[in-house]
């Protein structure tokens, strides 16, 4: 483990884009879908990408991945313990 090289996950082509979105945008998303924060899909605080972008419990992450049929697929995830 000691000699392993550290590298950033962000930008790796197998890792979709994770964006920490600000409070006002979170509210916009929640309103758009008519849901509470708890009804969003979840992502663990211990998830390597979350560790790297430094999000905290209760934050909402926007995940953008490429889709062969839809171009881009967006998912919002609530950071949990």
């Amino acid at each position, binding site marked *: 483990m000691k000699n392993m090289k550290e590298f950033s996950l962000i930008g790796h082509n197998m890792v979709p884009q994770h964006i920490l979105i600000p409070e006002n945008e979170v509210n916009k998303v929640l309103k758009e879908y008519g849901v509470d924060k*708890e*009804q969003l899909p979840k992502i663990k605080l211990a998830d390597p990408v979350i560790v790297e972008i430094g999000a905290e419990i209760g934050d909402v992450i926007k995940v953008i991945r490429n889709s062969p049929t*839809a171009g881009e697929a967006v998912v919002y995830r609530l950071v949990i313990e």
Partner: protein
Amino acid sequence: MSAVPKKIKEIQFGLISPKEFRKMSVTRVITADTYDDDGFPIEMGLMDPKMGVIDPGLRCKTCGGRAGECPGHFGHVELIAPVVHVGFAKLIRKILRATCRDCGALLLDSNQKKQYLEQIRMLRKIGQPIEDITNEAFKEARKPKTCQYCGARQLDVKVEKPSTYVEKDGTHEHKLMASDIRSRFEKISNDDIEVMGMDPSKARPEWTIMTVLPVPPVTMRPSITLESGQRSEDDLTHKLVDIIRINQRFQENREAGAPQLIIEDLWELLQYHVTTFIDNAVSGVPPARHRSGRPLKTLSQRLKGKEGRFRGSLSGKRVNFSARTVISPDPNLSISEVGVPLSMAMELSIPVNVTKRNLEEVREFIKRGPDNHPGANYVIRDDNRRLKVTDKNCEELAETLELGWKVDRQLKNGDIILFNRQPSLHRMSIMAHEVKVLPHKTFRLNPAVCPPYNADFDGDEMNMHVLQTEEARAEAKMLIHVQENILSPRFGGPIIGGIHDHISGMYMLTKGDNRVDKNDFLEMLRKSRITEIVEPAGEEDGKPYWTGKNVFSQILPDGLNMTYKALLCENCDTCKKEDCNRDAYVTIRDGQLLSGTIDEKAVGAFKGLILDRIVKDYTPAVALQFIDDMTRLAIRSIMHFGFSFGINDEDIPDEASAQISELLEEAEMRVMDFIIAFNEENLEPLPGRTVAETLELRIMQELGKARDATGEIAGKYLGLDNTAVIMAVSGARGSMLNLTQMAGCVGQQAVRGERIRRGYAGRTLSNFNHGDLGAAAHGFVKSSYKKGLSPTEYFFHAIGGREGLVDTAVRTSQSGYLQRRLVNALQDLEVQYDGTVRDTRGMVVQFKYGEDGVDPMKSDYSRPQTIRRIIEDVIGKEVE
């Protein structure tokens, strides 16, 4: 926080103590009698009204509820002597063997106990099963010969039948009475009980020996009054009567000081009755029987098995307005129709509300009576009284019919019903059809709807459900009508379409330039919607003629344009397009078939491109009409040309046979060469393989090639006119491999992808030499099915065939369970109006269905090419 449904955190199972039994009991039952001479239930009898009521009019003496309102209440019987509960016979045995016969201590030293306890507590905390630990504890505790605590010598405990325990001391045997066992269990300490995996506050071991028997409420064992006025009691009541009688006799005998032998006999009898009351199918215990000889259905028989409470009453129930019978084909029906036997149509009914508009119509049904289809079976007046329509009262009922009444009208042509075949693995397993009442006793359906149901006619049965409300009928018509399900959401193509003869028929009609005269033209299209004769294609001998392609074009919708390569295309290096020598280049312009042959790729279920185009570019109704026309045309056409198949069609000329044998001999020679090279250690191994593996691969490869070559020879001599060849190339049924095996050579038999090696030591059968590596000794079948197999070949073929059967059996059970798990996990997910997928708590599972919001049914075989297709259609040429 949103309103999230509550979760069950845990379920606690335990034993009920005698104290609790008495507490929950509303009465002690002391007499085996049920009713007195006036027909009233006897107090403290088995039918005591404190335990609930079943007779209408009476009230429960405990809760005051009437029959139907009162759920029933338990009573109890005080057993004169304790008896073993059969359900715990095994546990009792384990505990007897693990505890001291004197002081009741668990026969483990305190360190071991501590260790096991720690492990159990840890596993409990993380929610893992503790059985492994407790089983080990029981095993260890069985070992000591003397008690670590009081020094008492331990004896072997033997079990006889289900619930008799015998202590063995050398040759001396001593029977343990239930009371002995009970008092021994009473001595076990709470800590020891925990090590045995039980919770002493919820389940003490002595509670597995019953001293009090709960009497189930009357409501779960109602008596039936027969027509003769005689009462017939439930099986459970019968059993309780036995128990109470023996209990009484036991008491009398004991009080009278009867000899020990008699007491023991009675005790055993009591044990027998309590055992069979709980479970009447214990091995080693003769089942208790009714006077007629029928075994009684007692407690566990009510729950267990297919017809038990769980599988029979909770997971599945019988429903009204349904019917089931064998299915058979009728190509003259529409795919949206189903032929219903007349006798079923007269039994099944649809409720009709009588209104001003339909009064006369409904009156007519009633007038016809119940035996004159389509009639009516019942009339429901506005006071909800249900009157049966009979031959005698039908005229009178029709006259008195009033607005607001309801009439149960018999099923008639055009009614919409649901049709289903199990296993219902996808949504097309239940579709809405229109009724067509027909004579005879089977359901009739168009063979083109067999694929979605996965039905055939080798004895399959199907179910029909008659919809009872307007809403249900409207919903069925709009959502699950056959025409709405031509496309499958599984792959975005048609799942309903031509099969077997439909494809052979279309193929023979459209291949090349068949010519038909006016009579045949009319005959073939007679059953379709076509009403006009088009201009003939030309004249021959002064008579007009039409081509097969003309005939097919008649049923294509106007404006259809398509270009594609048919199934029989050989993928030539340079396609000759319209001039293809196999007529495989299909072009359709404005609904006219200009070139190419119609085969499975055009109109077949799963693959039919023309079908697919029509459903997606026109309407489901047009597609339904097309399938109906196509299947009827195909059947007429196959009848026109004639089509038959027998094993003699696989006869090949002697020269072909000679070629085949020569070819196979050469292959065998090459195999021998490989073997010689192998034995002389000259065989070059393939990369990553041993020499032996290489030899096997080489032989398999060589023999595989040889078999295919025989197929080619056979195919060449059979020609494209051979009916089996027609079926294979058009995709109707069978393959060239089947033909090869029939006419050429069956080929290598394999087990797990390898040549057959099992059997005797060093050889497969005793008539081969040890270590023979040749083709024949390891399952190569040189003969064809037509020629017949030699005895050894036959044997190897059976081995290979068995593997196929086992594979399918295993696969279906595995995929069935896989499917069940998926369905259980996904069944509550729903696509909402905003396009999100959510569960019942409103939790978002997907923000857009499938990430792209595409309905897989309407996608083109799930490939993102719809836009390209539209552009191609508009500009008229291919785009990249």
